[in-house]
């Protein structure tokens, strides 16, 4: 999975105009889970029961207790506190990737859809070349260049995800641009930039939201994979992928909790974002 799962979701044409009202408990559930994760990250110092980095070698590999609800890891740090604090770095990276890739992708999509012709052809060629690099390999190359940490992989993944977002938004934008109202705006003397900003972009927002949600999940998987490999966030900082790797040695001694809980945090987050994207597709497509 880590690497090159394509992050496109296909939305049928015209989806943006037909919105389904009514309840969707699964969608609501995803929103609640994501909101809780964000709150957890923001309020980590307030809600975490312990210092995430305070180790107590005498209390290593403890099971679940009142003071340590998820137990402690191999150097006696509180697993729950580390997962709560880990949410900060684990969610920050993907958020940055999504914002950068979405802004870039939408800009490329609008320009190519609006100008068409040679601009479109050249941009498509460049995007095709970018498709040849799976995000993870691209990120590893960036780490080789700039060293370990979060910055290089975030930049690399932003570039690697951009073409996927651009491709989906571009085809939606081309359909939208062909609608009569765009021409009416042009006849009325509106500038292209204004038409794009005031009309095209708002109508494309559902597509953008879906792509952003899917990208978030995959960015989280790729970034925590890098940290898992020791190429991303460095110890002792709490980060979920890093925690999975740190806990792996203890599995052999029969103490898999640290790894498993961190892995679970990743799965729950990715699942929430993937399902959110699915429900958004369904909501806009019906």
């Amino acid at each position, binding site marked *: 999975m880590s690497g090159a799962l394509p992050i496109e979701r296909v939305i049928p044409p015209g989806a943006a105009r037909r919105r389904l009202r009514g309840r969707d408990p699964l969608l609501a559930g995803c929103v609640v889970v994501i909101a809780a994760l964000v709150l957890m990250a923001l309020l980590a110092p307030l809600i975490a029961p312990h210092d995430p980095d305070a180790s107590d070698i005498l209390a290593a590999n403890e099971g679940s207790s009142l003071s340590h609800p998820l137990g402690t890891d191999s150097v006696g740090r509180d697993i729950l506190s580390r997962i709560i604090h880990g949410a900060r770095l684990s969610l920050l990276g993907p958020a940055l990737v999504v914002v950068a890739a979405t802004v870039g992708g939408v800009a490329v999509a609008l320009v190519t859809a609006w100008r068409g012709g040679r601009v479109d052809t050249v941009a498509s060629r460049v995007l095709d*070349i970018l498709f040849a690099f799976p995000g993870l390999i691209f990120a590893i190359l960036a780490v080789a260049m700039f060293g370990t940490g979060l910055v290089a992989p975030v930049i690399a993944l932003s570039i690697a995800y951009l073409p996927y977002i651009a491709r989906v938004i571009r085809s939606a934008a081309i359909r939208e641009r062909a609608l009569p109202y765009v021409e009416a705006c042009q006849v009325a003397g509106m500038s292209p930039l204004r038409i794009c900003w005031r009309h095209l972009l708002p109508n494309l927002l559902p597509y953008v939201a879906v792509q952003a949600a899917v990208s978030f999940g995959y960015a989280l998987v790729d970034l925590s994979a890098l940290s898992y490999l020791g190429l991303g966030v460095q110890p002792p900082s709490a980060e979920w992928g890093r925690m999975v790797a740190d806990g792996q040695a203890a599995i052999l001694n029969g103490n898999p909790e640290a790894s498993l809980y961190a892995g679970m945090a990743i799965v729950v987050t990715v699942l929430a974002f993937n399902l959110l994207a699915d429900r958004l597709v369904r909501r806009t497509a019906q």
Partner: protein
Amino acid sequence: MLTRLAGLLLTLLVASVVIYGALYLAPGDPSTLLAGNKATPRTLESIREQWHLDDPFYERYWAWLSGAVRGDLGESFTYKQSVGSLISDRIGTTTLLIAYAFALVLVGGVLLGIVGALRPRAGAGITAVSSVGIAVPSYVAAIVLITVFAVELGWFPVFGDGTGFLDRLWHLTLPAIALALAWNAYVAQLTKAAVHEESLRDHVATARSRGVAEGAIVRRHIVRNALIPITTVLGITIAGLVAGTVVIEQSFNLNGIGSLLVQATSSKDFALVQGISLLLVTIFVVVNVGVDLLNAALDPRLRTERRP
């Protein structure tokens, strides 16, 4: 087809420039990396000469690329060995792992997708399970599998690649499952969608109206036509499995190309990183060409020009 091929060659060329250029532009002086911090200016000088570090970019790139075409990818400074031999020593394990995982995806993903599309009741369950499956990263699947099947039950070895074919398969079983899991789910979902779409086509109704047996309709009209999108998805899957080995070899301490790339990246062994990256990108490009060729073989509309 020829223009497509030329496009892929161009992609490969640009990719090689990016791979080489990226590390060329990397901050820091490679000679200090090679010689260590305590090196005298003299040793640095000789190292710069030995590795051609002062030559202009295009000369070094050309020397590297022409070497790469001949199979000479330079020398790794951490292993003091040629990159080519380091790769060829490990490529067997990686290839076997990818082939194993791909076989699992073929049997699991494609089959589940077809069944899910044709049997609506099974379909709902397959969709639910595969949505969860897609969200499980390979390294998380790896630690769960190690915990349950290697440590708790002791059915499979925890680490290592084994010796002899059967023993290697044995050692690679858990890694292959971990690697294939999310892709299984992904392929199952897309196969299901493709088969479902094909089952609604008008020509399927034609065959049905002629009294063709349901099994023959599924084979000749539904699955046969769905093979075209499925091939594309399987191409993406191979590329993803190749990238995924980088992570999963680390999880299971396998001695393959992927773990070699991670080590090379950590130690800034540029020649090794460049060599492996080039190999991986070449594989992606070749897989793309393969998918195009297969699609042309499966879809006559891509073979012949449309006549008016």
